[in-house]
């Protein structure tokens, strides 16, 4: 009997250790929730273990987004990968261009700031991610001398130029998209009757604060077809009422159009077969990846 208990204990301990050893990421930092009303990947940002990386377009050597991602992800513990902002086309053979201002790792892809989207996303080379409301004009950047400067890149042309130069210097990645929620306030408005063609599956990236003030990033995929307004409203309510988030700091839209790429890895590193977008990752024209370090 003694031997049996001892063997069981040793075996359990071994299995637990083995599981920890083969795990690609710590489930304390990244959790996958499905099937539910929503498919959710919750990422804890404290401790800077979970980082973000964005591939905005093909590089100057002609490597496609997928090729760049493949090269980058080798040896990295990728948690998830999803399509990011809007492109003017979704087939990489037609050389798609991002809509709105876009800088990829310090290389300018598009200088044009779009009036249609209020969300400006900055993904730092260190893996940090920040979202700013362009309408508020309070984008804060840290200059080389350590000082912080507030820029209004939509209204002030000089500020915009300064911001582009700064992003080039710090090798930041920048893209523009629909800002749906900012500091707990919904930023989209009721759709009109002509918005029927905007009814589709939705995927959002939300940055929230929990009751302890921890920053949590959540990728929420809504399989039910809704308008942007309806989808955003429901997800915001869901996060606050059911997930008990203290504040939704920001929520941006991730494109689920023809470039709908979504791939989530299980803690053991294998791709979850039940969570996927409509397009294969090999056809990606831009990608937002979260990884564990």
């Amino acid at each position, binding site marked *: 009997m003694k031997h049996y208990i001892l063997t069981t204990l040793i075996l359990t301990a071994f299995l637990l250790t083995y599981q920890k050893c083969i795990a690609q990421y710590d489930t304390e930092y990244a959790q996958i929730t499905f099937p539910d009303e929503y498919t959710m990947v919750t990422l804890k940002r404290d401790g800077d273990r979970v980082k973000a990386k964005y591939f905005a377009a093909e590089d100057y050597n002609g490597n496609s987004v997928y090729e760049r991602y493949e090269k980058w992800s080798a040896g990295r513990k990728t948690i998830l990968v999803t399509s990011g902002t809007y492109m003017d086309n979704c087939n990489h053979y037609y050389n798609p261009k991002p*809509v709105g201002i876009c800088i990829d790792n310090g290389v300018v892809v598009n200088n044009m700031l779009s009036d249609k989207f209020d969300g400006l996303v900055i993904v730092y080379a260190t893996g940090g991610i920040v979202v700013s409301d362009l309408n508020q004009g309070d984008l804060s950047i840290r200059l080389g001398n350590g000082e912080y400067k507030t820029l209004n890149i939509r209204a002030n042309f000089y500020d915009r130029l300064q911001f582009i130069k700064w992003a080039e210097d710090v090798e930041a990645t920048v893209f523009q998209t629909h800002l749906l929620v900012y500091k707990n306030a919904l930023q989209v408005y009721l759709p009109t009757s002509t918005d029927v063609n905007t009814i589709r599956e939705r995927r959002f990236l939300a940055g929230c604060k929990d009751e302890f003030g921890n920053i949590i990033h959540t990728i929420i995929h809504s399989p039910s077809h809704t308008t942007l307004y309806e989808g955003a409203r429901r997800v915001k309510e869901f996060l606050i009422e059911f997930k008990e988030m203290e504040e939704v700091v920001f929520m941006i839209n991730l494109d689920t159009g023809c470039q709908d790429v979504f791939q989530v890895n299980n803690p053991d590193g294998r791709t979850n077969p039940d969570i996927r977008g409509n397009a294969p990752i090999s056809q990606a024209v831009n990608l937002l990846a979260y990884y564990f370090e």
Partner: protein
Amino acid sequence: MKHIQIASSLTVIIMLLVWIALVATVSFDEKIRPNHWPDQDAGNILYRWHVDSAHSHSRQFPFSDYLGRGQLRKPASYLRDLQVLDSLFPNVQGTNEQTLILALTDSLAMRIEPRLSDYQIDSLIPLIHWATSMTHYAEMSKNHGMLFEMLHHFWMNKAVNTLETYHDKRPVRKYHFKFRYARSQCELYNFNTSIGNSKTEKLIYRMLDGRWSYILKRMLYATSWWQKTIIILFILLTIYGFICIIRTHLNFNR
């Protein structure tokens, strides 16, 4: 049998008429009255302003005299003007550059924009060339790189916005050769237009890509009931046509 022949002939005629109507409405020969941008020397105007203002900046910069009717000049002449301003007002060199930036961006835009409001692609192309030429001076100029960079960004933005307005007014313009050229020039300097594809174009692209599941999904969720009805009728008509062909073929073989 006769009915089928009449129906198919009618379908072909209707399709032909629709095609003719589509082609006829594509006008690549719109009335374009190009605006010319003659060069002029503004040095005298600056000297006169200097004399008038009696060595002070209290008097406002003579924007209307300096800009004239909104001529675009060679970038080197702006550098010369800045040197003149710096020699006339050496104590406020930073302000001189700012004044010139203000003159050559917002003030100049006020003069130029009304002339680009119609489809003036022949006037827009030289404007794009002028704006792109600024990049070389931005790289070369040691002290006044910011002036040229500001001008480049400001006017490329204006050009892209103008192209988008032209497209919004008449989407078919994006196939116009000169429009495409202007657009490609902007894209060359990473100023991309947000001119997307129409629903029909998207459908064709998706069909070419073989994204049938995507098309089916969009048809199910993103079409109104009458669009669905038309699509179903069209599919039924096509199937009926095929059945008729097969039946005729079988009858003929007998």
